[in-house]
C-alpha cells in the first residue's frame, strides 16, 4: 500500500469542477445505477420473477374457472368472464407489485444501506423513486405480457397494437403513482412491520372495491361509489374497453360512474392527476432527514 495511490489528482480536479453543478445527466446516472442494482438482484434471485409470473396466471385461471358457468351475457353482450377478468388481473398485478416497491427500500433503511444513498450528493432523491418505478414497470410489463398471452390462449382475443400501446401507458402511470406512494410510506413509517400492515390492509380491499372482478352495475350503491373513486377502476375500465372494442377512440365512454359517464381520455387524464398527486405527496416525505 503506497500512500501515493490514495489521492487521485485527476479526481481532485474533477471534484473541484463538479461540486457546484449537478444536472440532468447526473440525475440519469444515479437513477440508472440504482435501477441496475434492482435488476442485478432480480437476476441473482430469479425465483422472484418466476413467482411474479406464475401468480397472476393462477389468478386468471382460478377466477376464470370460478365464474365459468355464469349465464352468457351477464358481463355484457358476447362477453365471457375470461375476457372480462383479464383487465382486472393485469391491473391488480401491476398494482400489487408497485404497492410492494417500498419494502426493499424499507429493508435498506433498516439495514443502514439507505444511509449510503442519503449521505451521497444525489441530485434528487426522486432518483430512488424513479429507479424503483422503472424496475416495477419492467416487471409489470413482463407479467402483463404473460397475462395477455394466456388470456388470448384461453379465448379472450387480443387488443389492437395501438390498444396494447395504450395499455402499456396506463400500466406505467399506475405503477409510477403507486410506487411513489409506497416509497413515501417506506420513508415515513417506523419499520417494515408497519409497512407490511399498510400493504396488507390496502391490497385486497382495493381490489374488491374496484371494478376488477365485477362491473359497477353489480355493486350496491355504497360500494359502486367507492369503486368509482378508486384509481384502480380508472386503470381497469379503459384496458377492459380495449379488450372488448377494437374501434375505440379517446372519446369512447368506458365507465358509467355514479356521477356520470367517463371517457377513455378522461380516465387517462385522471390517472395522470393521480400520478402527479402521488409524486407531490411523496416529495416532502423522501426529502425529510430521517433518524
Amino acid at each position, binding site marked *: *500500500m503506497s*500512500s*501515493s*495511490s*490514495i*489521492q*487521485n489528482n*485527476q*479526481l*481532485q480536479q*474533477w*471534484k473541484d469542477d*463538479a*461540486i*457546484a453543478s*449537478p444536472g440532468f445527466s*447526473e440525475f440519469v*446516472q*444515479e437513477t*440508472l*445505477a*440504482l435501477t*441496475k*442494482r434492482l435488476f*442485478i*438482484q432480480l437476476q*441473482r*434471485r430469479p425465483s422472484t420473477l418466476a413467482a411474479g409470473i406464475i401468480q397472476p396466471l393462477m389468478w386468471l385461471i382460478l377466477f376464470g374457472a370460478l365464474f365459468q358457468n355464469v349465464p352468457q351475457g351477464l358481463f355484457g353482450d358476447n362477453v365471457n368472464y375470461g375476457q372480462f377478468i383479464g383487465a382486472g388481473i393485469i391491473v391488480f398485478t401491476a398494482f400489487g407489485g408497485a404497492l410492494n416497491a417500498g419494502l426493499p427500500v424499507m429493508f*435498506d433503511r433498516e*439495514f*443502514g*444501506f439507505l*444511509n*449510503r*444513498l*442519503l*449521505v*451521497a*450528493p*444525489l*441530485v434528487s432523491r426522486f432518483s430512488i423513486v424513479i429507479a424503483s418505478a422503472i424496475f416495477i414497470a419492467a416487471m409489470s410489463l413482463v407479467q402483463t405480457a404473460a397475462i395477455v398471452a394466456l388470456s388470448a390462449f384461453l379465448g379472450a382475443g387480443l387488443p389492437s397494437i395501438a390498444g396494447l400501446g395504450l395499455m402499456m401507458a396506463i400500466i406505467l402511470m399506475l405503477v409510477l403513482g403507486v410506487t411513489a406512494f409506497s416509497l413515501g410510506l417506506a420513508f*415515513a*413509517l*417506523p*419499520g417494515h412491520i408497519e409497512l407490511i400492515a399498510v400493504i396488507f390492509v390496502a391490497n385486497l380491499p382495493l381490489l374488491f372495491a374496484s371494478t376488477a372482478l365485477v362491473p359497477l352495475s353489480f355493486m350496491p350503491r355504497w360500494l359502486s361509489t367507492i369503486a368509482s373513486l378508486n384509481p384502480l377502476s380508472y386503470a381497469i375500465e379503459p384496458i377492459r374497453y380495449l379488450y372488448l372494442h377494437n374501434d375505440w377512440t379517446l372519446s369512447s365512454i368506458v365507465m358509467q360512474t355514479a356521477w356520470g359517464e367517463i371517457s377513455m381520455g378522461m380516465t387517462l387524464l385522471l390517472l395522470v392527476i393521480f400520478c402527479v398527486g402521488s409524486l407531490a405527496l411523496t416529495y416532502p416525505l423522501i426529502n425529510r*432527514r*430521517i*433518524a
Partner: protein
Amino acid sequence: MSQQPAVVIENLQKHYGDVQAVKDVSLQIEPGEIFGLLGPNGAGKTTTIRCLCTLTLPDAGKLEVMGVSVVAEPRQVRQRLGYIAQEVALDKVLTGRELLQLQAAIYHLPGKLAKTRIAQMIELLELTDWADKKTGTYSGGLKKRLDLAAGLLHQPDVLVLDEPTVGLDIESRSAVWRFLRQLQAAGTTILITSHYLEEVDALASRVAIIDQGKVISSGTPAELKANIGGERITLRIREFTPLEEATQASQMLQTLPVVQEVIVNSAQGNSLNLVVESESDALMTVQKALKEKGLPTFGIAQSQPSLDDVYLAATGRTIMDAEMAAASKRDMKKEMKQQNMKR
C-alpha cells in the same frame, strides 16, 4: 495564511422525543488532522455525526464542513464528506465491485474516472481477490475494508468514521488503524468516534471527550492528561489482597507527602491506585514505605494518566461504568427515535 477549519460544530443541540441526545457540542477540526470523539455509548457521538453527515436535522447550532453550511447546503457537504457508519451495510447480492460502481455513480464520477478510481481503491484496500465475489461471503474485516473503499471512492475532504473498529478482530483493527494513518498522511481530515480509549489515544491528534450530550474536555491527548496532573501508580500487595490489609496500606500510603490520592480497586483484587506528584521519585518512596511496614509487593507499576483517568476526573465514572449505565437506557432511546420518526 490561516487555514479554514475542515469542520466547525458550534453549540449543537438535538433531541429525540424526550431524550436530549446532544445538549451542547462544540468542536473544530483542522484540515489534515485525525480528531477523536471519545465517550461512552449513548453519550451523543453518533447523533453528532448524523447531524454533521446531513442524515438528521439539528435543533440548533452551527455546522460547517470546509466552510459550507451543513443545514443550508447539504448536497455540497455530501460531496465533500465520506461517511463510514458503525454497522457496515452492504447488499449481499452485489459483488464488491458492483457496490463500488453504484457508489461511484451516486457520487457522479464520470465513467472512465470511476473505473480507474475503483481499481485504485480495490488495490489500495487489498480487495483484489474478493472484488468479484458477492459481499454476502465476506468476513467482518473484509466488509469493513470494502466499506472504507466505498467511503473514499469520491476522495472526500473529510472522512467521518463512527466506531470504525467495533466488532473487528485485533488484526483487522490494526489494519484499519494503519490505513487511517496513511490516509491522514495523504492529507485527508478524519473524524472518528470511539469508546475505545487506546484507539483514540493511538490515532487522534486531538480529542473531545463527550458525556451526556456535552463536551466535557478537549485538547491533545497529552494536554488532557497533563491537565489532570499527577502520575499513576498501580500497586498490588498480593495477587488477591484481603480488603483489610489493602485499607490499612491505603491509610499508611495516604500519609506520604508525594501521594495525593489512593483508591482501593475492588474489581482488581483490591489493588491500590495511587495518584502521585509527577516530579518526585514517588515509586521509590512508596516501595520504601511498604518495606518499612513489612508489606510484600506482588506488582507495582508507574504510568502517565490515561484518557480514562481524564474521563474519570471529569465525570467521576470510568467510561466502562458509563457504558453499563447507558446500556440500560438504550432501548428506551430507540423507541423515542421511532416515535420521533412518526411525526
